[in-house]
């Protein structure tokens, strides 16, 4: 761009442009970057409007259209990839301009909307979101403004939670083991009721290896006849397995019981 003074920058409507638009104060080197910075035709139009402190709602269409075309010509000249949207906007601006120039019959004037209205609406809507984007950018953001505070634990163990088990799993396992046991006829599994086995555990838990407990204290009349029977069978089984020791000092004296070992 060193010969920018002499070579035309662009041709607009066949007219060569050798100067930058009057409102453009950007040094030529930065021009390309500057033009690339526009986020589309609405962005460029908003820029032109704000640059001149104009009210969006009362855009001098002729002026703005001329400036817009100047920039477009520059962008084309610099072979910036020009999105099709820019050309669509140019056509739209030209149309608005021509409609504003057409004389309107006084009667129709009241109902007819301003040809600029839709453009104004689009510009305002876009402007709102430009502001929103800036507000978003201004929020305290992780990794830029605020940072997660973390400290490694001195001791890091992974607790492994035990897996869940269903009762059906348990029964299934038992079925397997019993089926295997049946193959060996020597392993006869006796089938006491579970309540007796449970009572055996409970009796063992209650008894002390060092001190004797009164035999009758193992029974709870409140449990009823069946409860007493179950306890009695449990005690017999524990005696048979050599887990209990029964002691009677003399005939008819109270029987005592203690855990073996």
């Amino acid at each position, binding site marked *: 761009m060193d010969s920018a003074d002499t070579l035309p920058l662009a041709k607009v409507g066949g007219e060569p442009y050798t100067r930058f638009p009057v409102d453009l104060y950007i040094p030529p080197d930065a021009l390309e970057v*500057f033009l690339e*910075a*526009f*986020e*589309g*035709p*609405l*962005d460029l139009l*908003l*820029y032109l409007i*704000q640059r001149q*402190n104009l*009210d*969006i*709602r*009362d855009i001098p269409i002729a002026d703005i259209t001329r400036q817009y075309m100047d920039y477009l010509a520059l962008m084309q000249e610099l072979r910036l990839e020009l*999105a099709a*949207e820019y050309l669509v*906007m140019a056509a739209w601006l030209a149309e608005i301009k021509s409609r504003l120039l057409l004389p309107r019959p006084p009667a129709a*004037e*009241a109902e007819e*909307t*301003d040809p*600029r*209205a839709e453009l*104004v*609406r*689009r510009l*305002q*809507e*876009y*402007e*709102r*979101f*430009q*502001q*929103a*984007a*800036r*507000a*978003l*950018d*201004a*929020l*305290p*953001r*992780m*990794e*830029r*403004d*605020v*940072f*997660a*505070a*973390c*400290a*490694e*634990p001195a001791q890091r163990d992974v607790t492994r939670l035990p897996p869940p088990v269903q009762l059906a799993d348990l029964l299934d396992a038992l079925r397997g083991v019993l089926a295997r046991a049946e193959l060996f006829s020597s392993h006869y599994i006796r089938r006491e009721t579970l309540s007796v086995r449970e009572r055996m555990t409970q009796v063992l838990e209650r008894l002390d290896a060092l001190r004797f407990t009164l035999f009758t204290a193992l029974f709870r009349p409140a449990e009823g006849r069946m409860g007493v029977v179950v306890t009695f069978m449990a005690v017999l089984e524990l005696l048979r397995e050599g887990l209990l020791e029964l002691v009677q000092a003399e005939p008819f004296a109270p029987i005592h019981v203690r855990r073996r070992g």
Partner: protein
Amino acid sequence: MPELKIILEALLLAAGEPLTLERLLELFPDEQRPERTVLRAALTELAADYGGRGLELVEVASGFRLQVPAAFAPWVSRLWEERASRYSRALLETLALIAYRQPITRGEIEEVRGVSVSSGIMKTLQERGWIKVIGHREAPGRPALYATTREFLDYFNLGSLGELPPLAAPRDLDAMGAALAAPTAQFPASSPQTEFPDV
């Protein structure tokens, strides 16, 4: 057993990410588990302890987080100069539209911005975990509907979408229409909210 708020401090520091009240409660064995209100009170107390310190307790969308306050950015940002990413205006505008107008299609974003949205931007936003497709509009081509995520709120220190900075109100279009009908009418100068820095 240490004081409840101190255990919470340890948990939040070790986690390094937001933890919900429920998650915090889960971390206590059944017999130690505090009441929700007690836990909340302990968190409030903890937050107060950090006045003037290098960390603060905040509640974001995904729960409670301990973080280094923005006041320390001048020093901390030097830790990871490459990490502090700047986002383009195009990306921020797209994100703003999705945040304020969700659920929204790509076509609707393009309509407001007046320019097509690059696939790169949508991809970046999705990879960052800030937006996601939450459905499709029943229209030709069934375009995807985008919405922001919990991670988006967390990242921008927001508890909910309601905490987003308010969107400027659209100017009264009826009044404007009337004014436009009279070509000579003068509008007041644009309000300061439309003041922009140079591009």
